[in-house]
């Protein structure tokens, strides 16, 4: 027994058990240092004008004073139509995104598309789509298509492709191999394997991703008007430019209401289809 314990290498490290190996500890330590340094440098160099900061609560109070009561008459005048347009932008954008995202998602899933080059191309498309903010996409499409809701819908679509495509690809990669193998053994063609093997498996996930994105898109399409891409953002930006804070407030309240309704709707639909 004693001889055995002496031969046992763990016996030697008895006295100095530590949670991590030295390499782990060093890399963690380095990581902490880098994080801390980044925070400190950011805090020191960021431009903060103290007078502005001290003034902030007063400014906020002033803003809320000007906002209340909200200008209700602004809703039928300008908000209602713009709000509908916003919803259309978000929905159309999501639908266009679905059409573009399905092929890209299939291309990025390594188990479905066994071609490294195609995988990489798809991945590049997805990363580019997600890296550029929808507001920036809107700027691009306003420059191409001119101001209006169409630019907004395309901005939403191009931003959503990355999101839907990435999650759709991941869902495909996580699907069970069993049914796919079974279909392969029957000699089914590629397209049948897609529609009979993969699609039924990922269908609930797919629609839940789309719903999730639609929810996000409604919020995003609300600000696209700030750069001229249509929707409620146009009404907001007009009110802001003229410093009509009571109208701004009315716009914000309407947005809140729509977001709340949509959230309820999405939860209900999700319960039904999943």
């Amino acid at each position: 027994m004693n001889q055995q314990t002496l031969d046992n290498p763990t016996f030697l490290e008895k006295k100095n058990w530590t949670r991590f190996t030295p390499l782990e500890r060093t890399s963690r330590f380095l990581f902490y240092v880098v994080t801390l340094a980044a925070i400190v440098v950011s805090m020191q160099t960021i431009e903060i004008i103290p007078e502005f900061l001290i003034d902030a609560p007063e400014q906020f109070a002033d803003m809320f004073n000007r906002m209340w009561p909200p200008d209700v008459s602004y809703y039928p005048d300008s908000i209602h139509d713009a709000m509908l347009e916003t919803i259309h932008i978000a929905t159309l954008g999501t639908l266009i995104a679905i059409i573009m995202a399905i092929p890209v998602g299939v291309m990025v899933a390594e188990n479905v598309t066994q071609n490294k080059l195609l995988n990489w191309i798809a991945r590049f498309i997805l990363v580019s789509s997600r890296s550029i903010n929808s507001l920036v996409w809107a700027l691009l499409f306003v420059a191409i298509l001119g101001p209006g809701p169409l630019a907004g819908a395309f901005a939403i679509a191009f931003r959503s492709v990355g999101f839907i495509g990435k999650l759709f690809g991941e869902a495909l990669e996580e699907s069970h191999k069993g049914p796919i193998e079974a279909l392969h053994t029957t000699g089914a063609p590629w397209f049948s394997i897609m529609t009979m093997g993969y699609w039924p498996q990922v269908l609930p996930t797919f629609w839940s991703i789309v719903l999730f994105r639609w929810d996000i898109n409604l919020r995003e399409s609300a600000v696209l008007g700030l750069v001229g891409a249509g929707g409620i953002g146009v009404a907001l930006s007009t009110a802001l430019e003229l410093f009509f804070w009571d109208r701004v407030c009315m716009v914000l309240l309407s947005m809140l209401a729509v977001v709340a309704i949509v959230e309820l709707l999405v939860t209900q639909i999700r319960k039904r289809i999943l």
Partner: protein
Amino acid sequence: MSNAATSNGKRKYVPKRNWAGTIAYILLAAYLLYVLTLFDINLQRMYVGIDRGAEFIGRMMPPNFERYALLIEGMLESLQIAVIATTVGVILSLPVGFLAARNLMPAWVTWPARAIIVACRSFHPVIVAILFVKAVGFGALAGSMALVVASIGFISKLFAEAIEEISLKQIEAIRATGAPFSSVITYGVLPQVMGRFIGFISYQLDSNLRNSTMVGIVGAGGIGGTLFAAFQRFDYDFVSAILISIIAVIMVAEGVNNIMRKLYR
């Protein structure tokens, strides 16, 4: 049963139709057509659009990095906004998320915490940024504060959900050893949620970085302001240089994030 009707001793197979699903698809298609007409989209407009798009892309090429000083300055400011917003956001999210976890806290604590989360989530960061620009003036401070609000809304919610999903068995085991409450947290709760927390934080850093390139459009600091100005001056070659830089920075950030997740798996 109803699918297999028997006649003449032979069974007939009638595939079951999902009528609700079919109707939903038809409605969706009809809606698509309606909106396309509403937005006055037709082939001619598409044709012109493609033409203009080609011209636009032509003007973007080649990217013009001549004003790199401006580019780097804006990019650094965006990075700073993202770092500060994530740090402050996480520090504030920890208590909010903890208080919102329904398995650890009573209802009268979780409700206010959940109200804070909903309030922070209800507006797009750009709109929050507009309000902060009004309150603290143009610049990176407004952008950072707007993204702090967005971070709280997002991370607290995920924190709370992660805490609600932990296994109570491990907590039971630690309680059975007679450990004090704080040790129950550090051994029973934290190891279960730490990996996911790190994941959320790195995700939020990523998301804040993307958003920090945008809040500049409403004057809240970062590269967005530079980008917006370049658009307004039709400097499309500078625009493409900025966009390429943003994509590059975000790809690097994704790499860093992956390393971070491996370290804390």
